[in-house]
């Protein structure tokens, strides 16, 4: 029975983590945007405005849940829950450190890929349920965007899987450090199995994966509906896109999903390309930096640092680049990213056959 209790604790812990991360993420987003636009951001509530998001969430919890008279009540109510649960389910397969993974799935990566696509359905549900033309336009743009960008993202992921020869995220993570069960080579010629560190990360094991990583990162921005791909909620055209009609707790849930999604796609990127929970410090002769900094606790620290760096870059991009037009967005996906991703997949096959 203890067995099941652990499952519940881990599930609740992951939920708590995603809620805390959303609080922190909104605060960080405001401060980053303020820094980039030469403003101050929140300053009043708490030291440096650090309690601002707590105040905001308290306000949200007290607000009235308004359901528009013409809305499809059931779909309108369920949509935010589905959007959030879809993202939250993905956390089940993500490894946090050596031996620390909520669910040891053989098909971890494929599972996450499937889960991400469910979010689209939640967004379409929200758009249709609201019975508002802005919501429905936002939902349709979002669905079109997510379906298109799944293709380059998928092929970028496949090029990693071809190198790693497994879909199990924990195994992929294990292969990128000193704990690897097989021989690792830096760029195909220098044996770094016992040196580890940054040289053993997937992007350096096979350098073409650097391109695959950039493709995946761009596609993941589009999948989490972040600028410059935020046409689904383009404020200047669509009020707030698919969540125009939402208030209070439901609105909070949509935001929770967005920030959890940011964290999840970044973490998947880190696991596949940037060495997962492995340390960036290599073993140098007698100075066994990699051996000293590998372990469950260190793993959590490294993966969180790397993931937060990627989330930071996502925020940086959001507040720097302007929004893409719809046709430009599709041209980027189909004419640039998809052929490049195909090329990466081809190179991966050749690399695995002849250089590993």
């Amino acid at each position: 029975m203890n067995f099941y209790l652990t499952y519940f604790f881990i599930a609740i812990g992951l939920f708590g983590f995603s809620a805390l991360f959303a609080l922190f993420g909104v605060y960080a987003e405001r401060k980053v945007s303020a820094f980039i636009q030469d403003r101050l951001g929140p300053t009043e509530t708490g030291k440096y405005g650090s309690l601002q998001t707590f105040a905001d969430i308290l306000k949200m919890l007290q607000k009235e849940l308004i359901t528009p008279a013409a809305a499809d009540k059931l779909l309108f109510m369920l949509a935010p829950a589905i959007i959030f649960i879809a993202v939250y389910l993905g956390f089940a397969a993500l490894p946090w450190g050596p031996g620390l993974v909520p669910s040891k799935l053989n098909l971890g990566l494929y599972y996450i890929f499937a889960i991400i696509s469910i979010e689209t359905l939640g967004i379409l549900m929200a758009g249709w349920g609201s019975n508002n033309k802005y919501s429905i336009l936002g939902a349709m743009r979002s669905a079109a965007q997510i379906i298109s960008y799944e293709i380059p993202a998928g092929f970028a992921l496949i090029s990693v899987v071809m190198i790693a020869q497994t879909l199990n995220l924990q195994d992929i993570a294990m292969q990128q450090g000193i704990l690897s069960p097989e021989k690792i080579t830096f760029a195909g010629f220098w044996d770094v199995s016992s040196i580890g560190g940054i040289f053993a990360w997937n992007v350096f094991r096979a350098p073409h994966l650097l391109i695959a990583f950039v493709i995946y990162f761009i596609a993941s921005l589009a999948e989490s509906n972040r600028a410059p791909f935020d046409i689904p909620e383009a404020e200047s055209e669509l009020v707030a896109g698919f969540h125009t009609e939402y208030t209070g707790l439901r609105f909070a849930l949509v935001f929770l999903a967005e920030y959890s999604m940011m964290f999840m796609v970044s973490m998947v990127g880190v696991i596949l390309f940037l060495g997962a929970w492995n340390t960036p410090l290599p073993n140098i002769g007698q100075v066994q930096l990699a051996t000293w900094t590998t372990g469950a606790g260190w793993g959590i620290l490294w993966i969180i640092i790397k993931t937060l760096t990627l989330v930071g870059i996502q925020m940086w991009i959001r507040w720097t680049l302007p929004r893409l037009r719809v046709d430009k967005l599709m041209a980027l996906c189909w004419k640039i990213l998809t052929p490049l991703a195909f090329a990466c997949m081809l190179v991966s096959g050749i690399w695995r056959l002849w250089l590993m």
Partner: protein
Amino acid sequence: MSLVQVLFYIMGFIAVASAIFVAATKSLVRSIFMFFITLFALAGLYVLALADFVAITQVVIYVGGILVLILFAFMLSGKETLNYISQQRKQFMNISKLPALLLAGLFLVVLLNMIFKVDAGNLAWIKRSIENKNVITPNAAMTENIGVNLMTSYLLPFEAISILLLVALVGAAHLSRKEPQS
């Protein structure tokens, strides 16, 4: 009853109940969203049958692809069309539904026949596989197995499907192409 059996019955119930709702409801959009639950329950049943790859593929293709495309077509068509469709004749039995009823009835006969005639526990080939240890365990990695089989025993059907999809793609590209200005 073991936990697996309990889960099987729960998911079976969800699948059947939501499928009945899909067929019976007046609101077309709700029936599509309910279909999503049916597909999910089916994916759960596949997992219980140790076919986790099939389960996830089901979610990727049906939920992430086909269902979203159906909804897309829905949202592109006007409300009037949708209202017209949902206000069609309500009778359960009428002459235009005869082929569908006939087909469903025949399928039911075949299925019932199968269930009552086949003693699944005592089939010869199943017994042989158990004796030869040619079975899948819950921890087995299925992906390699599927990949090898697709590239060896089932290569011809696999290639035939890929040509079919290519034809569909070329057709779609042709239909959406701009006419040359003459």
